[in-house]
């Protein structure tokens, strides 16, 4: 009997939706858009976070590891190197960093002092891949990577000594003397400008060392795990000096927090506005059906019955509209993410149903809310004329 009643109710609902095409269409459009909008606002911030995070990676290293024996306060300034004592063992560290998923980039650098016409100069030996990664935003004139017998001069040091691209320059290091060809001049806006950049292997062989570095510039992500990583590293390598570049970390964290907060508030705001709009449109369609409600009541339909009938309709509409809206919203989100950040927001099994449920409930709640108007309809209105 209940099944029979339900079947009949569903039939009435379906007919109401199917026969009143323009109204159904209008509601459908409005609900679908609302749901698409909420889906975009629910899903897109995740994409934006991923995209911004990737852009922020370009800030570069946020942790510097060096041996303790190195003199304090040296790097990061255009003062040249104070001392070049103490090395890191590359092999052990490389293995360690490779196994740690928090380490996204590791740039092993070897610093050494040499002389040019009895003036001290600093050599900075790096690895090709790490260097190219780190220098992607520099302004480099000439070639961007020195081969054997070549060197890339920092813009400051080049200016100081008046070096030009293509020039052969003679250096001294300890008792060794050698000539290097300047193949490029690099401007970074940071301490590298006062150094001579070349392949770490080449520098190692001049120094007569093997597989060592003066410091490692690390990119650790996510930044919230940096403290944890630092502690771990300190524990495993107590002999290392670890310096977290708080400025970089804070800058990233701050901007991520601000952008997320902004998107969150805007999302809430848009959700509320959307709900009000949906509630509005639904209210009007209820008002439009005033007489129908009065009729149902006058022939003995209770408030609960009429509300139930409308509720069923609202659920139907809300479900299909939010299904359509959800997919529309998702497609839009992916299109935006692809065009803005060139990335896909991954489908994950947790966020899909939650965003769908969220947009469904927004649509449902805001289309059910106006049904309270039904209680206000006087059945007697059917007796009165136009």
């Amino acid at each position, binding site marked *: *009997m209940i099944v029979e*009643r339900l079947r*009949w109710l569903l039939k*009435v609902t379906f007919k109401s939706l*199917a026969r009143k095409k323009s109204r159904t269409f209008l509601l459908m459009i409005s609900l679908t858009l609302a749901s698409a909008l909420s889906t975009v606002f629910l899903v897109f911030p995740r994409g934006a976070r991923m995209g911004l995070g990737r852009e922020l990676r370009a800030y570069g290293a946020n942790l510097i590891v060096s041996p303790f024996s190195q003199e304090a306060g040296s790097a990061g300034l255009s003062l040249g190197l104070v001392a070049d004592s103490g090395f890191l063992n590359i092999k052990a560290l490389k293995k360690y960093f490779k196994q740690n998923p928090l380490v996204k980039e590791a740039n092993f650098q070897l610093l050494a002092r040499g002389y040019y016409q009895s003036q001290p100069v600093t050599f900075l030996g790096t690895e090709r891949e790490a260097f190219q990664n780190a220098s992607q935003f520099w302004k480099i004139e000439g070639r961007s990577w020195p081969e054997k017998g070549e060197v890339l001069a920092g813009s400051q040091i080049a200016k100081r000594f008046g070096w030009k691209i293509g020039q052969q320059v003679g250096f001294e290091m300890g008792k060794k003397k050698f000539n290097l060809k300047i193949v490029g001049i690099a401007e970074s806006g940071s301490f590298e400008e006062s150094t001579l950049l070349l392949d770490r292997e080449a520098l190692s062989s001049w120094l007569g060392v093997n597989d060592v570095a003066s410091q490692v510039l690390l990119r650790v992500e996510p930044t919230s795990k940096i403290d944890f990583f630092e502690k771990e590293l300190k524990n495993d390598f107590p002999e290392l000096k670890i310096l977290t570049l708080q400025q970089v970390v804070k800058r990233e964290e701050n901007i991520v927090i601000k952008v997320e907060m902004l998107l969150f508030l805007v999302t809430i705001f848009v959700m509320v506005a959307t709900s009000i709009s949906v509630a509005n449109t639904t209210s009007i369609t209820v008002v439009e059906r005033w007489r129908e409600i009065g009729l149902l009541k006058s*022939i*003995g339909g*209770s408030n609960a019955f009429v509300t139930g009938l409308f509720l069923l309709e609202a659920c139907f509409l809300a479900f299909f509209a939010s299904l359509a809206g959800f997919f529309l919203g998702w497609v839009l989100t992916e299109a935006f993410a692809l065009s803005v950040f060139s990335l896909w927001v991954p489908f994950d099994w947790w966020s899909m149903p939650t965003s769908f449920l969220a947009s469904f409930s927004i649509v449902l709640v805001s289309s059910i809310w106006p049904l309270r108007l039904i209680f206000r309809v006087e059945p007697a209105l*059917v*007796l009165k004329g136009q």
Partner: protein
Amino acid sequence: MKRKGYLEIIRLSKEYGEVKALREVKLTVPQGQWLTVMGPSGSGKTTLLSLIAGLIKPTRGKVKIGGVDIFSLSDNQLLQFRREKIGLIFQQHHLIPYLTALENVMLAQFIHSLPDEAEAIDSLIKVGLADKINRYPRELSGGEQQRVCIARALINNPGLLLADEPTGNLDRKNSELVLNLLSKLHQESNFTIVLVTHDPWVARWGERIVQLEDGKVVDDFLVQKSRGRKR
């Protein structure tokens, strides 16, 4: 002549603020009687009908149907009572536009208890719409729509049929059709009818006429039958 009143209206008053729509109306309608309420517009006809149907509440007074004081019932009981005992026909043939004639009748069954398709089809055949049961209201003429309304009003075998200007929107030919139909059904089932109209021509189908003016009963008499049946 003195039969037990099926519908008893006892000192019924309704005021809308300062406006007195009904003043102390007293009426007793015996079981099976066809009562026509006449009066100019604004005389309180529709208010009286709404009160009898329990759609609005009186300022003072009582309405008893089959001995039940309907305003002493709770809202839900009243609703239940209306479903069981009262059929309603309106001037505008109110039908749900997205349901067919048959479904409109079945909706009343549904609200009452359970839809019974065979019974609903039967009722539509009775009002002469055998070939139009699956039409939508839009595809029916005014007279046909009103006949669907009659079928709907009577589907649950109410004891009391209330009709508010049932022919108000119809031409003479269709009006006659509808009234004759009503007459026929009345004869068959012996329910009580209260019909509101301002048209003396319509009043001739009834057995008794009550004249309302300014919310008061000013005349109350039995009709000399020229057509229809006698009791």
